Each structure stands twice: as structure tokens, then as C-alpha cells.
């Protein structure tokens, strides 16, 4: 009967009940096994294997046995300027997408939280970027950015703002252009999360502040933001990770070009592993990416959380 026991409830134990707050009984293990095995075999296992690979000279299609080479991959990586350039681009991309994404999503969530007409339409349209395959998002924006037949250049020409650019192959415009696509693609999820957070803010408090004569900005600062903060923090941290690890969008839009200007670390590692067959070296890149992103994220979250305590 352990399964029907809610350890939280006082004196609510079913016959033969489990230990309060304790672990799962035999029955529970039986229930967990079908998920646990694939997770261990196809997720935890490969992850550990991947970390081990980073210390070998594993290559694709080689006949000689793979050898341990210690930290040689990491030493090489340290001097690989192309990788660090790619890492820098990855950070610019991740921050460049996450920050506008958050601000735009916050604006939209605040609007949707108002009693406006056309709210339903915005909700319906927000499904599009969310549900669309990333490859299609990439293809679609290629059509928008197309130098001759694209709507962006046509609109610019109509407005008399010059003859337009080849956005995705210009050295200066490629990264900003793909960042706009990243913002577009991720905005709905962030909006939905923030909207949910907004709907949890105490309405009475808001009204009381309004009666006391607090302006819109003041009300936002003192009532809305403190309630929204945990959700905002969580979604921003997740967005940062997701964006840093993104692949398909940029693969379709520019394949990392022109001249590596949009070569995100994932694209770099993908090419290293599956174009050049350098499995060990690519695995080392993966390890470095996880480690550095974890550190950055820890710093970000620690800073934010401390700020929250003071407020």
C-alpha cells in the first residue's frame, strides 16, 4: 500500500503504509525501473563515456586502437584560437538572444495580462514560433533576409532606406541577423512563463498601490517585479543554456559563415566530430563548454539570488 501513502498528510497512512518522508518501497522501484534503465543506458552512461573520450585520441574510421592521451586534447584546445573565437561568438549570441528575448517577452506578457482586445490573436500567433521546427524557422527567415526576393530588403527599398543588404552573408550583419531570428524563435516560451508568473502576483496589492497613488512604473517595481522575480530568473537561466547550446537555427541560416562569424560552439564541435572525425577532441570541447557555462551560470545565479535577499 505504500503507493497510496502521502507522507505529507498527518495520520493518513493507508494499511501497511510506507515510512513518512522515507524512500520508495519495492513497488516503487518496480515502477521506476522502465524509465531508469534507458536513462542510465542512453543518457548518464553516454555522458560519462563522453567525458572519458575527451582524454583519448578517438577518431572516426581509424583501425588502430584508441589510446589514452591524458590531457593532451585540453592542452591543444587551450591554444586553439578558432575554438575560443567560436566560444566568444557563442557567448555574444547567447547574451544577445537572451536579453532582448526577456525584455520583449516581458513587454508582451504585461500586455497580455491587461484586458485588451486581440489578446486571443496574440496568443494564437505566439504558437507559431513555438511549434515550428527550427529548420523551418531558419528556412523562413532565409526567405525574409533574401537579398533580392526577400521582404526585408523590399520594405527597406519602399521606405527609401537604401538598396538593402545581403544580410546573412555580410561580415558585419550576419551575427545580428541570426540573433534576431533567435529572439523571434524563443520569445513565446519566455512570454508564457512570464505570463504565468504575472498571473500569480497579488491583484489586491496592485490595486492598493494604485489607490495610494503609485504610478505604473512604481507599481511594477514594488509589486509586480518581486513576485515575478523567481520565474524571470529561472527562465533566463534556462534560456541562456538553451541558446548557448543551440544548433539547428544557425546551421540552416548560415552554416556558421561568413568566415566563421556565426560559428557557434555547437557548430564548431559538430564539424570537428562529424566532418573531420576528431571524436576525442570534440568531446574535450563539449567538456569545456559544460564546465565554463556551469561556472558562468553559477556566478549569474549567485549574484541574482543575493540581490533578491537584499530587496
Amino acid at each position, binding site marked *: 500500500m505504500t503507493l497510496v501513502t502521502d507522507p505529507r498528510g498527518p495520520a493518513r497512512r493507508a494499511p501497511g503504509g*510506507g515510512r513518512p518522508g522515507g524512500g520508495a518501497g519495492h513497488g516503487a522501484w518496480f515502477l*521506476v525501473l522502465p524509465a531508469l534503465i534507458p536513462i542510465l543506458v542512453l543518457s548518464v552512461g553516454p555522458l560519462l563515456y563522453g567525458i572519458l*573520450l575527451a582524454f583519448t585520441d578517438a577518431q572516426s574510421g581509424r583501425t588502430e586502437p584508441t589510446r589514452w592521451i591524458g590531457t593532451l586534447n585540453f592542452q591543444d584546445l587551450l591554444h586553439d584560437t578558432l575554438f575560443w573565437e567560436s566560444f566568444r561568438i557563442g557567448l555574444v549570441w547567447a547574451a544577445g538572444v537572451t536579453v532582448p528575448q526577456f525584455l520583449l517577452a516581458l513587454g508582451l506578457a504585461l500586455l497580455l495580462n491587461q484586458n485588451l482586445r*486581440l489578446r486571443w490573436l496574440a496568443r494564437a500567433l505566439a504558437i507559431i514560433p513555438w511549434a515550428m521546427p527550427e529548420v523551418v524557422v531558419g528556412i523562413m527567415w532565409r526567405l525574409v533576409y*533574401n537579398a533580392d526576393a526577400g*521582404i526585408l530588403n523590399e520594405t527597406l527599398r519602399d521606405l527609401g532606406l537604401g538598396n538593402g543588404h545581403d544580410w546573412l552573408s555580410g561580415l558585419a550583419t550576419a551575427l545580428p541577423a541570426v540573433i534576431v531570428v533567435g529572439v523571434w524563435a524563443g520569445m513565446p516560451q519566455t512570454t508564457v512563463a512570464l505570463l504565468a508568473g504575472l498571473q500569480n502576483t497579488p491583484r489586491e496589492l496592485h490595486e492598493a498601490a494604485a489607490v495610494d497613488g503609485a504610478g505604473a512604473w512604481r507599481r511594477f517595481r514594488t509589486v509586480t517585479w518581486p513576485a515575478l522575480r523567481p520565474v524571470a530568473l529561472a527562465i533566463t537561466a*534556462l534560456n541562456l543554456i538553451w541558446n548557448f547550446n543551440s*544548433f539547428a537555427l544557425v546551421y540552416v541560416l548560415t552554416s556558421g559563415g561568413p568566415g566563421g562569424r556565426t560559428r557557434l560552439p555547437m557548430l564548431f564541435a559538430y564539424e570537428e566530430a*562529424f566532418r573531420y572525425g576528431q*571524436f576525442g577532441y570534440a568531446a574535450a570541447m563539449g567538456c569545456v563548454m559544460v564546465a565554463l557555462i556551469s561556472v558562468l551560470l553559477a556566478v549569474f545565479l549567485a549574484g541574482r539570488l543575493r540581490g533578491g535577499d537584499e530587496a
Partner: protein
Amino acid sequence: MRTSTAARAGQYVALLAYLVFLAFPFLWLISTAFKPPRELGSLHPTWIPEHPTLDNFRQAFDEQPLLHAALNSLLAAVGAAVIAVLIATPTAYVMARYRGRFAKAATGWVVVSQAFPFVLLIIPLFLVLKNLRLINSVPGLVMVYVVWSLPFALWMLAGYVRAVPAELEEAAAVDGAGRLRILVSVTAPLLAPGIVATALFAFVTAWNEFFFALVLLKTPEKQTLPVILTHFIGAEGVADLGPLAAAAFLATLPSLLVFALIQRRITGGMLAGAVKS
């Protein structure tokens, strides 16, 4: 609390700007899909095709094995969704009803798994699947998709389980129902809508997935739609725009339809998963 007319007007202007930003790329995709070659080559493209045509769709099916790719995508997505939900539901139940070490570990794994860069996962998976001769096979891809969609499935399902009052199960237990009986006749019916929503979400995620499919599927007859779509773009980055747009539009329709059905439940599920009593 009254909002002034000026502020209201400002809000509508802002909302309109959002609507335009969200909608215009998709409208442009549809417009391109129905344009004849002459209009696609025009230096002054129009929003509404002057001579709308279905030729692009026909050409798209001629150029690439779209139907076969759609079938592969369907197999991969349905397989992944069904298996993921089947194995995730019991675990999610345990996660939601026990607060022991296991539930903590499971929640921790759900969170940590979001931070994996896929590249660290795909190289070993590629090597393992290669040894099992499951490279370039849809079943191999299904296995990867199942594990990949498990964190989110667990998260959502655990939320839905928490929404089923434990008191109901206890009442049934007091009435003498066995554990299996309770799960089947009390919990499962209440959980069904959540299970369906989770399965559909896993379906869309797998249908849309690109990276694993790109690495694991080598020949066109095994490849899924997103991979086949990239074949429309030539080596030089030059693409036949009309058929490309037509194929991309068709590949999106299933995702949009399914997502429209479940959007509200997904939103609710994410929240429910986040609520830890």
C-alpha cells in the same frame, strides 16, 4: 483602476507591433510557397502572389522524397511519444507521491539534463549505436528521442499527478481497493488528459528535431523531414525558393495543429510541474 485613453492607445500600438513581428515571417513563407518562378525572381516581390500557383508543391515532391521523409518522421515521433509516456508515467507517479531521495535525484536529473550540450552526448551515443548497428535506422533514433524527451515528460506528468488529490486514492484504499486497482480505476482516468497532452508534446518535439537526426541518419531513405528540408538548400547556399517554402510550410502544419490543441494544457503542465506543494 482606470487606465487613461492615451495609455490604452499606446498599449494597442505595442500589441499591434508584436502581432506584426510574430506573424510576418510566417505570412511571407506562405506567400513565397504560392508564387510562380517569375515572381520569385522579381526585384519587387509582393505580399500577395499575383498569379498564385501550386506548382511549387508539385515540384517539391518531385525534387525530394518528402512523403517518405514524412513517414519516417511520423514513425520516429509516434514511437518516441508512446514509449516515452509509457515509461515516464509510473516514474512520474513515484516522483510526485514520494518525497524521498529518489524524487530529489529524479528532479535533479531533470534540471541537470537541460544543461547538457548535445555534442557531449551525441558522440558516445553515435559510437554506442554504431556498435549496436542502429545508426541510420529509425528505431535507433526513437531510442535517442525517448531519452531526450523523458526529462520534460517526467516534469509535466509529475505535475499532473500532483493535481490528482491523494485523498481520492486513500479513500479507495480505505474501501479496500488494491494498489493496482487504485492506479487503474482512480488515478489513470483523472490523469488521462495530462498523459495525452504530454504524449502530443513529445510528438511535436520529435517531429521537429534536427540535430540527432542529422548525425544519426545517413541515407535519404531513412532521413526525417527536417533533414530532407535542408537538402533543398544547395552547397552554395542557393535554394530554389518556391519548392523550399512549399515543403517547409507543409512540414510545419502537423506541429501547428497539434500544438494548437494542447497549448493550454502544456502551459498548465509546466506550471503544475513547477509547483512543489
